[in-house]
């Protein structure tokens, strides 16, 4: 269970939310309304106030890097720090098992990052986080650069993970995706998070 109590920072009004294991929640809202800021705040990437805990363990009781390994944020714009794709993966062998499911053919792990398209980067950045087996994935528009076919592949994989007990907090502009993926749907407006009637 991911428990958020009065989490706030500049722009973002206090948010309280509980997400049990195996549940995906979706957040929609206009650009600049504070959706990404919320995800970043949960991942402890920006200074913020309030309390966050995972399965009963307070975030503040954990080293920041350990927290982020369990509660992993995947940004809308992926970052790549070395030339070779495979060097960005902690477990390239595990990742390789998912590549075909995500629509990759050939030895993408040995490619230079510069060869990847935006959509390929987006899928690989998600995979890179996923193979580290986090308890929570904070996904910022995970399929914004993907065509419907690739989006379906990503969603199918995410469904499998959710069924396996992972928690997902997802920011998306796509109402259809929110409906397909999530049990609970929220809307962010001017930094205020409110639940949509289902």
């Amino acid at each position, binding site marked *: 269970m991911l428990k958020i109590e009065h989490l706030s920072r500049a722009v973002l009004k206090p948010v309280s939310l509980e997400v049990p294991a195996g549940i995906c929640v979706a957040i929609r809202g206009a650009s600049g309304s504070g959706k990404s800021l919320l995800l970043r705040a949960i*991942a402890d990437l920006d200074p913020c106030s309030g309390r966050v805990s995972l399965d009963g363990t307070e975030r503040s009781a954990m080293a920041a890097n350990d927290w982020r390994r369990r509660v992993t944020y995947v940004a809308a714009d992926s970052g790549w720090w070395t030339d070779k794709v495979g060097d960005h993966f902690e477990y390239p062998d595990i990742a390789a098992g998912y590549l075909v499911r995500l629509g990759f053919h050939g030895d993408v792990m040995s490619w230079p990052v510069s060869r990847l398209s935006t959509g390929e980067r987006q899928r690989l950045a998600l995979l*890179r986080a996923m193979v580290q087996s986090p308890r929570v994935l904070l996904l910022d528009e995970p399929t914004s650069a993907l065509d419907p076919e690739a989006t379906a592949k990503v969603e199918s994989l995410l469904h499998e993970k959710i069924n396996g007990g992972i928690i997902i907090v997802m920011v998306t502009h796509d109402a259809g995706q929110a409906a397909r993926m999530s049990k609970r749907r929220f809307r962010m407006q001017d930094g205020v998070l409110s639940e949509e009637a289902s």
Partner: protein
Amino acid sequence: MNYIELSYLDIALAASLLTVNAGLSIYYRLGTAKRLLVAATRMVVQLTLVGLVLKALFHTVSPWLTLLVGLAMVGFAGREAMARQDRSFIGFWGYGLGTTSMLMAAAIVTIFALATQFHADPWYDPRYAIPILGMILGNTMTGVSLALDRLLAEADNGRARIEARLALGHTFREAMQEPLKSAMRAGLIPTVNGMAAAGLVSLPGMMTGQILAGVDPVEAVKYQLLVMFLIGGGTALGVFCAVMIGLRRLTDTRQRLRLDRLRVE
């Protein structure tokens, strides 16, 4: 020692070379003529004043006065180093980071040199202390400002890269590995290049000055080597210190990348 004493006319003639420079700048509209003029004027005024101050200082061999002049030099170096950066920290650390690093590096190396190689008596004799400090500071300043400029630029421009690693659970130190290496390298390049080219491409300024002033070239070379080693050590120390403190200021106890602490000029 016999050396040819310079008249002020000689110096004025040398200065006239700068007008060629200024002329080119005006002709090609490079916009550097004014800067050149200001820099040259500053140099003349500063060096003239320094000549007078040094003369007075050498007469009164006072540890406190030497310390005071030394600190003032470090203070100016700190300001100069900050002015050369495109990005700096907000608040005290904007000025304090470079200054603290230079103070530490220059103090350690200067006292080391005075105590061991120069056997100055008393050890704080300004005749030795001030020129050594000046030389070390001048070079450390270049190194420190280059290193900090690179570190802060890489942190700022590389935000997506760095935060991607943080988000995956890497420590801040791991996430900053590339900017760190790049900053250290940038800070040490002038020193490394200077050492590599010394004698083959360029005769270092201090050695040239000594030879012109009538010193035996072999003795001048020995002094130059000593100075190059002191400069190399001082720069490395200052760069290391500045980058390490800079790295700490770029993050907090939760290992976040704190770009909000930076000001971009």
